């Protein structure tokens, strides 16, 4: 693999997978909020 291809692959992984990890961490810090009162399907 060429150096530029490796660099772009690493960049894509870092941004997309790293972004997902950060997004999950951010969500983990926020409260769950209310659970819907009723979850039946009548």
């Amino acid at each position: 693999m060429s150096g530029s291809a490796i660099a772009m692959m690493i960049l894509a992984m870092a941004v997309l997978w790293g972004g997902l990890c950060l997004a999950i961490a951010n969500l983990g810090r926020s409260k769950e909020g209310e659970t819907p009162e009723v979850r039946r399907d009548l």
Partner: protein
Amino acid sequence: MTRETAATQDARRGAFSSRLVFIFAAIGSAVGLGNIWRFPYVTYENGGGAFILPYLVALLTAGIPFLYLDYAMGNRYRGSAPLSFARMHRKAEFLGWWQTGICAVIAVYYAAIIGWSLRYMLLSVDKGWGEDPAQFFTGQFLQMADPASGVTLDFVPGILVPLVVVWIVVIAIMALGVQKGVGATSVIFIPVLVLAFLILVVQALLLPGAIDGLDALFTPNWAALGDTAVWAAAFGQIFFSLSIGFGIMITYASYTGRRTDMTGSGLVVGFANSGFELLCGIGVFAALGFMAQAQGVAVGEVVASGIGLAFVAFPTIISEAPAGAFLGVLFFASLILAGITSLVSILEVVISAIRDKFEMTRIGSTMVVSMPLAVVSIVLFGTTSTLTVLDIMDNFINKFGILLVAVVSMVVIVWVLRELPALASHLNAYGSIPVRGWWTVLISVFVPIVLGFILVQEFRSTLAKTYGGYPEWMVSVFGWGLAAAVIPIGILVAMVRWRPDTPTEIPARNMEAER
């Protein structure tokens, strides 16, 4: 509306039991066949590694902001797409039915592809496509009729039976309801899908030639960044991949608690979808690199997308690769899992809309919606004309259905009804990521212009010649005709009065935090 009435409505409609289930369901909807068979090809064709830059720009400036718009609508107005639009403004209800009609059309042909994948998963075990997968697919498998002969009623048992199985499974899921059916399916299927694809990627990376495939995928062609078509491809890929703009995310967001962090959830869904696309790109191009080396040609000569990638290129790879049967089962199982969670979300838009409008039971609305769609699906796509009809419907309903309704809806919400401040306020009430002026600018100006540009380009290129060389009457009926027909049908259904127990006012409890 009183608190009791709002709670009663939630009870009748059903809801996800937690934020986690909602996120899994939304990821299940977004992660579909396009992630596996479209993203790798679009990346390769549009600058390789350089495409990552416009792709990221599109994700952050259009995909996630548009996702927030859908989430805000569903969560604030707490209804299916038609009910949410009706609560926004009574005269906007037809937009919701337009979106619902598009989902009904997509469901009809989407099931067929899952049925093919089911059959191919079984064929993978003994490589039942023989020496020539391309000839096998159109010949022995589809028994494809000459497109000039139009729609046939010559049923092909090999595609009919799997299609019936898919519809039975999906109808059973839908009948189980929002939590036990839609939610539980995604909670189980998505982790299994990720695991299966991870194993596939590892196995593909161990094949000889895999590195050549990755090199072809990621080597940047920086000159491509100066081409507007490349940027349009990036925004198109993000738009079609995220399940935005045609009712799915509105419907799912209406099933979440009023205090759910919609912006934080949206960020996870957006990055999870794109993260999985990247994984698919790596897996698919590693396998294509092996195929190219085995045939002694350049990777560019074996690159394929869509149906050609899944049902011609991959069977070729499976036939030649060590432990190919295992690779094949993993690949087609991934298509089935990704396809079913997406099909479930598409059907849920229609079922939810019918339920809200006519105050039907879950089972009743599931049957009223799914049975006719299943019959049409089986009649159209269990026969020798399946590929022709599918190709036309898929092309036109995506471009002149989903894309058109998304642009029109966005313009109506932002510029006609001027709802953006209320929606931003709703997102900010419990959202961990505040939406401020940047979101307003993106949603009101930038995204409509970009999507409008893509739409105009598609109109121009489609009008230039008869699509696919198919008979003009077929393109007119299954292409332009279907894409256009859902609009007047939507207007007609919107004229039907809502039942007394489904008020078209905004649920009062949703306004509390915004005050």
